[in-house]
Each structure stands twice: as C-alpha cells, then as structure tokens.
C-alpha cells in the first residue's frame, strides 16, 4: 500500500509479470483463441461476423499496443494503416486479383513502407505533438482517398467475395491475423527489440545514451504496428465486400483499439485481446439494444474505463492490497 502512493503507473509495472504481462492471463488468452476456431462450425452467420470483428479489433489493438503501449508513443492515427490495408485489397481486387494471401502480404509491405516514410518526420515529435500529428495523418489520408477517382473517391470500391460455402475463409484469415499479431507481440516483447521499445518509453534520452538508436527503433515499432493493423484491414475489405473512406478511416476505429488495450492492460501480451473481447462484445450488445444512441454509451464507457481502470483489468487482478489500494490510485492524479 505504501508504495502505490505517488506514481502508481510506474511503481506497479513490476506486478504486471515482466515485459509480456501475466503468464496465466496469456495462457488463458491462447486457450480462448483455440476455442474461437470452432465458431464457424456453428453455421451462424451473425455470430461469425461478431467474432470476426472481435478478432479484427484484437489485431488492431495489438498493433496499437506495440507503438502506444510498449514504445510509449500515443498514436491517434493507426486507423490510417487499417484504411491503407483495406484499400490495398480493394485496388488488387479491382485489378482482378482474388487472393486473400496476396492482399495481406501486399498490405503489410505497403503499410510498413508507408509507416517508415511518414514516421521519419512524425516520430521526431513527442507527447501531445505526436498524438495530434498522427490524428492529422488519418484525416489527411482520408481526405486524399475521398478525392481520388482511381480509388473510387467517396463512392468506394466493391470487392468480389467468396461464395457462401467458402465464406468462413475470411473468419479463419482474421483469426490467423489476430494470432500472428498476438504471438508477434509476445516474442518481440521478450526480444532485444522489445526491451529497446520499453527503454524508449521509460526514458528516451537515457535509452539513447545507452546506445539505443531511438529513431530507428521507433520506426521499427511503428512499421510493425502498421503491418498488424494493415493486415486486419486487408482481410476486412473482402469480408465486408465494400469499402469507402467513411468505413475504413472511421475516427472511432482509431480509438476503439486504444480503449481496448487500456481496458485489457496496456503494454502486455494478453491485454489487447481481453479488451477487444470485452469492448467489442459490449459494443455489439449496445448497438443492438440502442440503435441510435450506442455511441453515447460507448463514449461513457471510455470515460468510465479511463477514470476507474487507468491501468486495465490485468493490472487490477495483480494489485496487492485489494480495493483500498485501488481507491487510492484513483485519486493519485488529482490536481
């Protein structure tokens, strides 16, 4: 109790279970992933879409977690990569390529290049400046796509879809993308790369003094983050059958993955998945219950998560001292 008073965010990182988070939580997540493989066997089209969306958000949340959680650069523009990935698939499909694997691979390559290119100027910025610049990138790219006839402008692109009998291929593809993002996070976090990311998060100048080429590692983190997010977009586009700027660059899908990561546990390998299941699930229920006002509830949910669980569920379960300690941490940032 004594050691959570002044700066609970820093002090309690230890109880998260090292650099990848609580191992029990990660094992549970792997089991849950294995169970999710059986969803298409139920032949329930609606449920399949719900769970495919959960997997999609999980992949996006893992993408954000790498740059925002591990490297500490709060990106508000990761939806750009989702959109770029989706449009890679759209353009390939319009040119007669009907191969899901090709979509994903091209999206990953294009996104990595795009992230590196944009990252060179933008990753020089820190804190607020980085956050809002990335928000601007998303709006700017959406602006450009909306005006380009080659990309269907604001009327969007229709993609050829697999027939009904093979429709579950999109579900399995999304499952693979989510699993890839999850395992990649786990192994990257345990590698030298992961330790470099965390060093940059904790103190970039000190990391630089220790010989970590901060700019290079930041660009690597952002490029991997972009690849995860873009792969999800490349599967989403054909699965949805139609893309336009308002669907693929929705400002909400910018923030859903962030809220999910925070709810589950930021900077852990299990957190993004847990958050995605809970929040995407809750959003689905709200959407059905309140057709017109679900954003209202979603906004309130984000506010409540930030105020009550700023370090996420994974953290709360590892908290020593029970409810009293938790209550104390809630008032730690009062002015």
């Amino acid at each position, binding site marked *: 109790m004594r050691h959570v008073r002044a700066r609970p965010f820093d002090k309690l990182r230890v109880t998260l279970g090292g650099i990848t988070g609580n191992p029990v939580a990660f094992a549970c997540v792997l089991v849950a992933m294995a169970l999710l493989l059986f969803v298409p066997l139920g032949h329930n089209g609606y449920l399949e879409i719900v769970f495919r969306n959960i997997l999609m958000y999980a992949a996006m949340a893992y993408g954000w977690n790498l740059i925002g959680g591990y490297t500490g650069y709060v990106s508000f523009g990761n939806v750009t990569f989702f959109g770029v990935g989706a449009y890679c698939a759209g353009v390939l499909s319009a040119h007669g390529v009907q191969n899901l694997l090709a979509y994903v691979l091209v999206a990953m390559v294009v996104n990595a290049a795009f992230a590196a290119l944009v990252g060179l100027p933008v990753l020089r910025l820190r804190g607020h400046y980085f956050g809002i610049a990335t928000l601007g*990138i998303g709006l700017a790219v959406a602006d450009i796509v909306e005006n*380009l006839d080659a990309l269907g402008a604001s009327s969007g692109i229709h993609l050829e879809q697999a027939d009904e009998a093979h429709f579950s291929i999109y579900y399995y593809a999304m499952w693979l993308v989510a699993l890839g993002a999850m395992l990649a996070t786990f192994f990257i976090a345990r590698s030298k790369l992961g330790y470099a990311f965390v060093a940059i998060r904790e103190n970039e100048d000190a990391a630089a003094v220790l010989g970590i080429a901060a700019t290079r590692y930041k660009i690597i983190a952002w490029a991997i983050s972009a690849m995860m997010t873009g792969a999800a977009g490349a599967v989403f586009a054909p699965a949805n059958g139609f893309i336009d700027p308002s669907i693929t660059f929705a400002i909400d899908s910018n*923030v859903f993955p962030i809220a999910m990561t925070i709810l589950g546990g930021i900077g852990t390998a299990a957190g993004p998945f847990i958050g995605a299941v809970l929040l995407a699930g809750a959003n689905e229920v709200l959407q059905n219950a309140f057709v*017109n006002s679900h*954003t209202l509830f979603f906004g309130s949910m984000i506010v409540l998560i930030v105020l009550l669980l700023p370090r996420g569920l994974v953290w709360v379960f590892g908290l020593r001292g029970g409810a009293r300690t938790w209550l104390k941490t809630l008032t730690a940032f009062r*002015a």
Partner: protein
Amino acid sequence: MQLLAQDLVNGILAGGILAVVALGFSLVWGIMNIINLAHGAFVMLGAYATYQLTKSFGLDPFLTLPLSFVILFALGYVIQRFLINRVARAPILITFLLTFGLSLLVVNVALLIWTGDTRGVTTSYSGANFTLAGVTVPWIKLDTLLAALVITGLMHVWLTRTRTGRAIRATSMDIGAAQLTGVRVRQIYAIVFGLGAGLAGVAGTLISMSYAMTPSMGDPFLIKGFVVCVLGGLGSVQGALIGGLVYGVVEAFATQINVTIGTQSISGSGLQDAIALIVLIIVLIVRPTGIVGKAVV
C-alpha cells in the same frame, strides 16, 4: 491580382474565427497541459446554442455571443471539476482518451437532440456585402472578424490586468510557487477549462453565422485549432491571433491550388485536412516554438 486580393481578404476573415477557436484550446493546453479533444464538440455546442436561441426566442445571433459563452463556461467548469480534475496530472494518454470519450458523448447527445440534418443561422443581413477595390467583403464575416478581435483583446486584458488572470498565469508558470502564494489550483483549473469551453462556444456562435452546421462539424476545427496553436505559439493570446490569421490566409491560398495525383487533378478545397497537416509538420520542423511562443517539442 484581383483574385489574390480576394483570397487574402477571405483568409483574414476566416482566420479571425480560427483565432478564437485556437485561443480556448491554447489556454487549456498551455496552462493545464491537457489536449482537449472535446474542444471541437464544444465549438459545435456553441453553434447549436446560437441556432436554438435564435430559433426559439428570435434573438439576433450576435446577441447570443455572451449567452453561449456563459452556457459553455458552466459546462466546462463542471466537466473539469468533476471529471477531468480526477486525472489532471495523469500521463497524456489518459486525458487524451477521457476528452475523446467526452467528445463522443457530447456529439451523440447533440445528434439525438438536433438530428444529423444540416442547419444554419440566417438573418435579414446574411447576404449583404460591399465591394472595395474589386474585393467583395460580406458584412457578416467582417463583423465576426471584429468580434473575434474584440474577444481576443478582452482575453489579453483580463489575463494581464485582473487578479484571477494573474493567478492563472502564475499557475501556468509554476504550480508549486503559485500554491505557496495562496492560489487555489483546483479552482483555477476549473476556471481555465470553463474559459476554454466558453471561448469554443463563442467561436461556434461566430461560425454558425457563416457556415452550415452538423453535430460532427467540430472535428476539422479541432485539428485547425491545434495547428493554429502550434503555429502561433502555445498558451499565448497574441500567438493564437497571429497564428489564426496566418493559417486562414495560407488555407485560402492553398485551396486555390490544384494538386495532380496520377492522371487526376484535385481541387485544393477538398484537401483541407491534408493542408492543415502539411502546415503543421512544416512548422514543427522549421520553427517548433511557433511565431511568438515558447512551445517545446
């Protein structure tokens, strides 16, 4: 030449409004170190407050300026006191997300009240304009520019001459020292956030007179407000004014340029967000302190 002069005038007229948008944003950021992502939503609320007041009570839109300031000030004060103050000193991610959640909430409430239809405020003098040396100036835009200048001037005087204004500036310089001299920081923060929201409301009122409104109208103003803030220099009244005017002119000229991508030529007016981003990145690289300010990147 005529066209250039017209663009210049249009830019200055639009810049005055941007200055007021940025002023509130800049105060909250400079003094509390919080990026208020709900600022655009507050601008939208100000516009709808004017819409509702003119529609229900037949008020002249300029008369609603103080009313929308008071309404938004009260809202901002309460939000700061009961929500944001809980995390006022937390890492940026927390306040970013909190204010984003708030903006989702506010926009959705507005959507439920006023629906998503495009609305506008029209008066008997809406279409009136005069021509000076071949440059057309709409009266209403000139009046909003004057109102914007008066508001910025008032803010400057208030911040430098009054007791509360000085306490606010003291807080932004050194919280600890301010507290030692008896400044109640919690109170000051609530006033500053209320002021930021109030100024956003005033900006919304000014915007409502020349532009159409929808509940999602705030987003571009949030981004532009941020760019203006960085351009002029953080937390400074003069900075917001100069930044706003410069940005307004840059945007007026940039929207006249046609960009060719591939085989297609795009008019710059469709690329406003992209222009804002490019200006932002250039400023941050060339002059990260802003034109008059002391911002640190």
